[in-house]
């Protein structure tokens, strides 16, 4: 579904991603772990071109998205993204946050978008917040809304960039449970996270990144149970 070939990215002289090749299959739940500064977020953000790769190609559904002539907006409509800091639009109500993109991109009419939004809000138990503003919500609620906002575009894949890192501890659970439901529904997901419990439970594949490279990957059993790479062992000993 997403094919990454020889992806490199540098900021000035600093090489953040070093020749990464990886394939994400439909239905995959890929969880990326690694120390901070390892390039996990940059890798995730490259997948929908929020970061422009310095070298290499990324192909999504047969379309080379690194080609400058590709309509990147059309590609991004099929890739939902959830950010660490939610990035809800504070100048709009929750409902408008969710319906803006489907309506403006011509995916749905206003009425369709609103009924989709209400359905999704009901799924995460926040339908009574439809007319509230983001500043009136808790962090956990904001992140659930951000997930709903991305889902409203009917994406084929969801990218999560440390979705629980900015949350108070008691709110992590409500966000993770929404993500687990999503995983159970068969959504293709790529998740950068420090939640090892979530990685072990939901991940179909774990990627361990350090210094811009994928050093080890495998199913959770193998990565957490029998880590091979010394740096992965070192990392796990610190976080588990």
């Amino acid at each position, binding site marked *: 579904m997403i094919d990454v070939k020889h992806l490199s990215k540098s900021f000035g002289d600093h090489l953040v991603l070093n020749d990464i090749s990886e394939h994400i299959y439909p239905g995959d739940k890929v969880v990326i772990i690694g120390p901070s500064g390892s390039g996990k977020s940059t890798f995730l953000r490259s997948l929908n071109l929020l970061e422009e790769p310095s070298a290499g190609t990324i192909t999504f559904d047969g379309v080379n998205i690194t080609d400058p002539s590709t309509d990147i*907006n059309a590609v991004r*409509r099929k*890739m939902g993204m959830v950010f660490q*800091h939610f*990035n809800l*639009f504070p*100048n709009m109500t929750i409902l408008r946050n969710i319906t803006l993109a489907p309506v403006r*991109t011509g995916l749905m009419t206003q009425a369709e978008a609103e009924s989709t939004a209400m359905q999704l809000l009901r799924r995460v138990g926040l339908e009574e917040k439809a007319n509230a*503003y983001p500043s009136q919500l808790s962090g956990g609620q904001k992140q659930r809304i951000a997930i709903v906002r991305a889902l409203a*575009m009917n994406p084929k894949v969801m990218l999560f960039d440390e979705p629980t890192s900015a949350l108070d501890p008691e709110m992590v659970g409500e966000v993770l449970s929404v993500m687990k439901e999503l995983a159970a529904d068969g959504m293709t997901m790529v998740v950068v996270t420090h939640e090892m419990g979530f990685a072990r439970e939901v991940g179909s594949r774990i990627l361990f990144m350090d210094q811009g490279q994928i050093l080890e990957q495998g199913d959770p059993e193998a990565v957490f149970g029998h880590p091979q790479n010394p740096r992965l062992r070192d990392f796990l000993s610190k976080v588990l």
Partner: protein
Amino acid sequence: MEQYEAWKVLMREGNATFFQEFYVKFYQAFLEGDRWIQYFKGVGTTLVVTAAALAIGIALGILVAMIRTAHDQQRPGKHNPILGLLNAVCKVYVTVIRGTPMMVQLLIMGFVIFSSSRNYNMVGALTLGINSGAYVAEIIRGGLMALDPGQAEAGRSLGLSYADTMRFIVIPQAFKAILPSLGNEFIILLKDTSLITVIGGKELVYAAQAIYGRTYEQMFPLVGVACIYLVLVIIFSWLLGILERRLRQSDRR
């Protein structure tokens, strides 16, 4: 009226009380020959020139801010040469306008560039607008740059175009953030219209000058004009406050 004539004689003889002298000077400054009408016309011109200058300033400011922001936000290694040229022009404009006194700009525009024009008010409005545009451009640019880049990223990651992201997400938030600075700029502009008298603009200060040119009594016309400016600024500050409060509705908790 009769009292005015009588007290005027007393004053000339040097026998008027403080109150009588005050009344005579006040009468001369505002009431004799319906002079208050001149002040009213002056206020009208001041407001028209302010409005015209504001429109020019905001239009120029938006244009310059958009060019400069679009230039700065280009992806590294992908520089558009036309945008580069426009950006250089904008930089020169901002540097020259901010680097020279408004009074000198007015004199150059009035006596050199538009020396044959008789429409002093509009030459003044144009100059003020061009001047204000440079400051407004920097205010807008500051507002756009201060906004969390995550907002634009969220918009783009949903598949919205650059234009839609600016229109629905970036600009409304930036506008709210820069409104106090814009209001400040507007008030400065309102007061700076007084400078157009130097090229013959017939606004409020011109009215005062015309009147004390005939009565040789400067205090009342000038203090009166100062009071009128003060009242205008207070009214506009109040209106801006209402607008700010309305825009801040989404912030309530």
